[in-house]
């Protein structure tokens, strides 16, 4: 598979997309965390509400149960006390009943004889139609009922069977009536109006006449909540009331959430209902929650800012490093290229560079794109002699001197060292135009050098002709001319290879 080159743009786009994705993930995570926090808070509020209410309802229901049981005990004792008294008249009986009534601090303490005549502190009346527990001729066990006083308050009626004789009459029952408002006072619910409660009959009727919050008030609770809970929940709620079960109901009325907890009051047929507005607990938790959320938001914002800055910095650094690396690579490439084309001794272009140039020029020559080109072939005279007689260091100096000399004169040309003592100069443009003068000056200098025993370089040159197909053709002519010059310089006293060989 062909590997694709990774560009700077690719890196930048990847970094940008990565940064955006990270930010989106942070935001999504923050949103999810917030939702979770709200959901958890609501669940906690509901749980706290339910727990709080269940505990409260349970305690209050037990309070009523204790009240009932205590009153049953008191009634037994009161009847026993009356039985112990020597009562011979209705007046004495009324006085005794009055004492017990005061002792028990209740609305009505009464005895019932076998003819269903009811004896209270101030009245004696036939009670067959007035008291439901007298429907049966005999009374076998304790009874608890709710009395709806015609147009008046509602009372809790407790009845015990008795078996005593007073004034020669057989008495069959003792009953007390306790005003439900007194029971309500006994329950002593919180006075901050954050928790509401009411006692209900199994039919959902409010018998305590206490308001169960602003919406339900004192209405029948079944009627009040119908439509605000599902049909299934409503039916279950009714069934629980009918069967004396406990439970919890969440009411959501006009976006206000109320938790309702109901607890049966044993033996009474009542349900004690306690309600708290979730907002009450929520308000308590909200402040803490808001602070926590605010801190979380700050952290998230801080994290986002840091992440953004860090991403930007990282992006900048990556880009800068990449750019520097690229520059470095370019520089290295340039150096390597330079090293490959440069003669290490003289610092001028080497044969490799010449061959590259030759290759390029050949193409242009073939295409007829060049019309002015001159080639100068150069050769150092007496290099072997210097190497042999004065050592290679001296020979190297001679090469450098020759190179410097050639470069000095052919400053408008390209100088190549193509062999140990061979150089080529390519002249184009100004170098081409001035070639005659430069070559003449160079040759004059050489001839002077012969006399001074300094560096001698034989040169020959040629220009591109229309018949030339390649640079080598020009080179050949220049090379021939160079050899001719070498001979000429030999005649002037310059050392040559031939000379060297001859002298050895």
């Amino acid at each position, binding site marked *: 598979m062909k590997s694709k080159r990774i560009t700077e743009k690719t890196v930048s786009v990847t970094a940008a997309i990565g940064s955006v994705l990270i930010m989106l993930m942070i935001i999504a995570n923050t949103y999810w965390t917030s939702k979770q926090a709200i959901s958890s808070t609501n669940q906690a509020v509901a749980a706290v509400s339910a727990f709080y209410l269940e505990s409260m309802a349970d305690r209050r229901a037990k309070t009523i149960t204790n009240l009932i049981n205590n009153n049953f005990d008191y009634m037994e004792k009161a009847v026993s006390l009356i039985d112990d008294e020597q009562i011979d008249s209705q007046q004495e009986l009324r006085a005794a009943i009055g004492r017990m009534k005061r002792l028990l601090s209740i609305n009505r303490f009464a005895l019932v004889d076998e003819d*269903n005549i009811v004896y209270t502190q*101030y*009245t004696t*009346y036939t009670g067959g139609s*007035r008291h439901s527990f007298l429907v049966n001729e005999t009374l076998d066990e304790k009874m608890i009922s709710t009395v709806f006083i*015609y147009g008046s308050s509602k009372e809790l009626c407790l009845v015990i069977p008795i078996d005593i004789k007073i004034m020669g009459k057989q008495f069959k029952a003792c009953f007390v009536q306790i005003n439900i408002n007194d029971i309500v006072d006994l329950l002593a619910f919180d006075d901050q109006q954050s928790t509401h409660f009411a006692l209900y009959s199994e*039919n959902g009727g*409010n018998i305590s006449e206490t308001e169960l919050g602003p919406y339900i008030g004192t*209405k029948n609770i079944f009627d009040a909540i119908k439509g605000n809970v599902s049909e299934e929940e409503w039916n279950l709620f009714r069934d629980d009331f009918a069967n004396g079960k406990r439970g919890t109901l969440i009411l959501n009325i006009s976006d206000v959430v109320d938790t309702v907890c109901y607890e049966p009051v044993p033996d009474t047929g009542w349900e004690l209902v306690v309600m708290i507005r979730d907002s009450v607990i929520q308000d308590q938790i909200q402040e803490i929650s808001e602070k926590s959320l605010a801190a979380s938001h700050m952290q998230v914002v801080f994290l986002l800012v840091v992440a953004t800055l860090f991403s930007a910095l990282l992006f900048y650094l990556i880009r800068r490093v990449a750019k520097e690396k690229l520059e470095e690579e370019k520089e290295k490439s340039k150096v390597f290229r330079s090293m490959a084309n440069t003669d290490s001794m003289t610092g001028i272009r080497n044969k490799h560079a010449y061959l590259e140039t030759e290759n390029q020029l050949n193409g242009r020559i073939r295409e007829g794109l060049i019309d002015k080109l001159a080639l100068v072939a150069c050769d150092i005279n007496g290099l072997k002699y210097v190497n042999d007689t004065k050592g290679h260091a001296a020979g190297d100096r001679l090469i450098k001197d020759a190179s410097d000399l050639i470069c000095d004169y052919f400053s408008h040309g390209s100088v190549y060292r193509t062999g140990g003592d061979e150089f080529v100069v390519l002249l184009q443009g100004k170098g081409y135009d001035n070639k005659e003068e430069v070559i003449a000056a160079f040759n004059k200098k050489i001839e002077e050098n012969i006399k001074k025993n300094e560096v001698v370089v034989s040169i020959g040159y040629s220009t591109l002709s229309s018949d030339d197909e390649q640079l080598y053709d020009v080179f050949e002519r220049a090379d021939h001319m160079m050899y001719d010059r070498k001979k000429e310089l030999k005649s002037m006293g310059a050392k040559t290879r031939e000379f060297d060989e001859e002298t050895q």
Partner: protein
Amino acid sequence: MSGKMNSIFRKFLIVAFSLGIAGTGSAYAKDDVTNVSTTDRAVDFAHNLDDYVPAKKNYNFYFTYKIVHPWWDAVALGMEDAQRKYLEKGIVITYEYMAPEAASYEDQTKRLMQAQDGNYDVIGVDVADEEKISPVLDKMIDSGEKVMTFSSSDAASGCKRIAYVGNTHNYQDGADLTEALCEKLGYKGKIGILVGSYGAPCHEDRAKGAKDTIAKYKNMEIVAVEYDMDSIDKAYELSVDMLKDNPDIAGFVCCNMSNPVGTARAVTELGSEAVIVGMDHDQEALHYLKDGVIYCLGVQDCYSIGFDTLQVAVKIADGNLPGELFPDKTDESTTIIYQEDAEAMLENLYGDVSQ
């Protein structure tokens, strides 16, 4: 919301009643039934004692009424309210409030004789049979007893009883209920009349009012008049018989508290469309009214009857006679209520419409 409305309704009833009393305060013997609109008061629970200062600190009374029945239990509650209010003023009132299981002038006579032997400041009686009881009362008065009548039935005209507190317009109640029935039936059809106890003035007067009203309309006919002796079961049986004998019976006039309950049961059971009008505030009857089985009910203010009876008894015990302090007949109101009033009335009287 309905609780609040109910409270407003109660207050309105009280105010309306007070205004009504103010307007009729000087009419000691008002014969007109208080056949008022449904929004007016039916039962007034807000009572205060008048300015009269009792002469004694202790009173002992004896009251006897026709029959053990919830109607008189409501009267008893008014009495107890007055007794408590006297007690708050330091005046102790004790009393007996007794009745037989079945209405009987013999039983009532026996009770009165026994009461005469007791040490009571005043003896009050709800006359079971005016013809039989009135002479007994005269004898008691002659022997120095202070005797008054109360609740549903006064003694016969000319009786020496000192005063009467209760319904003074039973004839008109019967007439007004029947008028409502006739109007509902378009002044035509067969009518059955149920009465309570033989000779009970309140029942007989209402029945007479019903008969006279029906007689005004040529297309209406009374097919039966029966007495249930204040028994719901008997009323049911009689109504079933009437319906079987006259399947096309169009309506019933029920003259006491048990009549409409028994009749409604029969009408419901037999699937009759007969229209029922009746008396009083029985809880079951109010439910039938709410359900539309009963067309309308005449509700007497029993609570006020009881409260006022005790106040008048105290004045009589102190030796006062009818005049400025109290009238010869203290009139108490009757209100005709219809289906739309039933729920509020149930709540008012029994505290819980579902009970």
